[in-house]
């Protein structure tokens, strides 16, 4: 077997797949070495979370003291319950979820369908259509948000969450793009085989390619979820009543205009709580993202 010491090891495919290949002690050592390396780097990634949690236990004085200290002294208890007792916070979470669910479900469907068409079906002007779609994300939101607000006002949607939901139902260009790319890696023979079997186009999408896209779909849904969860600007501009505020708007409202009056511990506690569901979701979703799909044995 090849004995290479290069750090860049090739993907061994998927971990679940049983292999009769024996992992040599050398490779095991390499794995552990890589794990340690990656872990150290990962620590730098996790830093903000650690800091946020610690800050949520600090008194205002300590936070504003300018010097960054890591251990809360004294330890301030009660910020988390304070956050949760603020009715606004909970309603912010609920509103955000009210937006996430329809958008991800329906938008995910329309996006994956479109991606399937772009990647696996033949039609005239395919590339030009795609480029046109891509053009829609080339305009900074700042410039588009005011006319969109005008539109939503005329439609009477500003008293609800609709401005955040309806546009998303039609699909997400980044998602379509990524799924399209991903589908390129899946052999087109599957398409031909399905056609030969007399499958409808929709059927091919639904029964053959959608399951194969699971990993990519999961990844993109995760990113889209995060995008909506963290979005601040659109909800602030489009939503009028406090009752409709989504999570980030609520957290921002905890911020005072004058830094000195901001309750940082509260904001950090709120941010930590806001992160927990997303991290949990991610941890769970990973199964879908990282699990491999065996694409052998087509013949």
């Amino acid at each position, binding site marked *: 077997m090849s004995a290479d010491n290069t750090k860049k090891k090739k993907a061994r495919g998927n971990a679940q797949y049983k292999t009769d290949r024996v992992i040599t002690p050398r490779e095991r050592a390499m794995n552990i070495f890589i794990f340690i390396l990656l872990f150290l780097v990962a620590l730098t990634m996790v*830093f903000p979370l650690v800091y946020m949690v610690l800050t949520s236990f600090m008194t205002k004085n300590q936070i504003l003291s300018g010097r960054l200290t890591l251990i809360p002294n004294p330890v301030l208890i009660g910020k988390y319950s304070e956050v949760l007792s603020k009715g606004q916070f909970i309603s912010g979470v609920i509103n955000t979820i009210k937006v996430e669910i329809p958008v991800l479900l329906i938008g995910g469907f329309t996006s994956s369908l479109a991606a399937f068409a772009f990647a696996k*079906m033949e039609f005239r002007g395919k590339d030009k259509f795609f480029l046109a779609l891509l053009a829609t994300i080339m305009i900074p939101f700042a410039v588009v948000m005011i006319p969109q607000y005008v539109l939503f006002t005329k439609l009477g949607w500003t008293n609800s969450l609709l401005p955040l939901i309806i546009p998303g139902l*039609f699909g997400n260009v980044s998602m379509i793009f990524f799924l399209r790319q991903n589908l390129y890696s899946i052999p087109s023979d599957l398409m031909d085989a399905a056609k030969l079997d007399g499958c409808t186009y929709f059927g091919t999408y639904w029964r053959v390619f959608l399951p194969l896209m699971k990993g990519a779909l999961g990844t993109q849904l995760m990113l889209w979820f995060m995008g909506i969860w963290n979005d601040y600007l659109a909800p602030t501009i489009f939503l009028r009543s406090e009752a409709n505020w989504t999570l980030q708007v609520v957290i921002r409202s905890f911020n005072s205009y004058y830094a000195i009056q901001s309750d940082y511990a509260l904001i950090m506690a709120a941010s930590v709580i806001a992160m927990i569901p997303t991290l949990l979701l991610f941890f769970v979703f990973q199964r879908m993202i990282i699990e491999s799909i065996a694409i052998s044995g087509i013949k």
Partner: protein
Amino acid sequence: MAGSKKVKVKMSQMAKREERWAWLFIAPPFIGFMCFMAYPIVFALIVSCSRWTGINSLWGNLVGLRNYIEIFQDAKFWKAMVTTIIYMIGIPIGMILGMTIAMGLNRGIPGKRLLTTMYYVPVVSSLVAVSILWAWVFNYDYGLLNGIYKALTGAHGPNWLGDEHMIKVSMIIFMVWKGLGSSIILYLAGLQNIPRDYYEAAEIDGASGWQRFRNITLPLLSPVTFYILITSLIGGFQVFVEVQVMAASGGPNYSAATVVFYLYEKAFTNGQLGYGSAIAVILAIIIFMITALNFWGQNKWVNTDI
């Protein structure tokens, strides 16, 4: 594609049918676009030809292409544009790091799920916390980086956020760090699609690690790389929040500001929506040209079919 001469090729029934279904499938995003983007884009184009402030009259203040001409002579605009392009150095850095880490994670090492989640934390973290933290890391007197620097060299480290040139470096570091999690999971998803058999076959044939990487992994990851490249370019041209959060007034001598940051300042702080819209239009055109160029060039290096 047929039709190089005047020979008309009739599409078969099957092909027409496929085409119609395809159009149906891609209809939703286009309908969405027509409903929610068409009017705003037209509106933006009109506003860009005016001296509209949001408060005064739009139609009474149309000035043709004057804003565009002024932008080309605007030193601050070009400064921001240069900064924006410099920030894009982070794109290849992020891609290489992301791909490397994804490959490492994909080996089947223990704790993969935990590690991947850890890498994703910056993406989900609140921007407030992240910026406070990095402001400390980069702090001239008390910061982590300068602390390490002093320990290693005994000299005072650079002024990461206060120096005109260093601040760009700091911003790039910050942006790469923030975006790493996303590119890692994107590459992971791409790596999943590579059939294991290919590697085994190559190993049997005696290919070295590097050769397997260059001839299997890299080409088969090229669609993902292309995606990351395009979306990073489009996103890179529109960087805004990071600057707002790390260098609120644009940095010393405006050295950290990006084009969209400048746009915001012009449009919302200084009430010049017309000028801001013109900046947006110019930006969109530039992004479009670069993207189109990339698409045209993708045939050279992106694998679109197995």
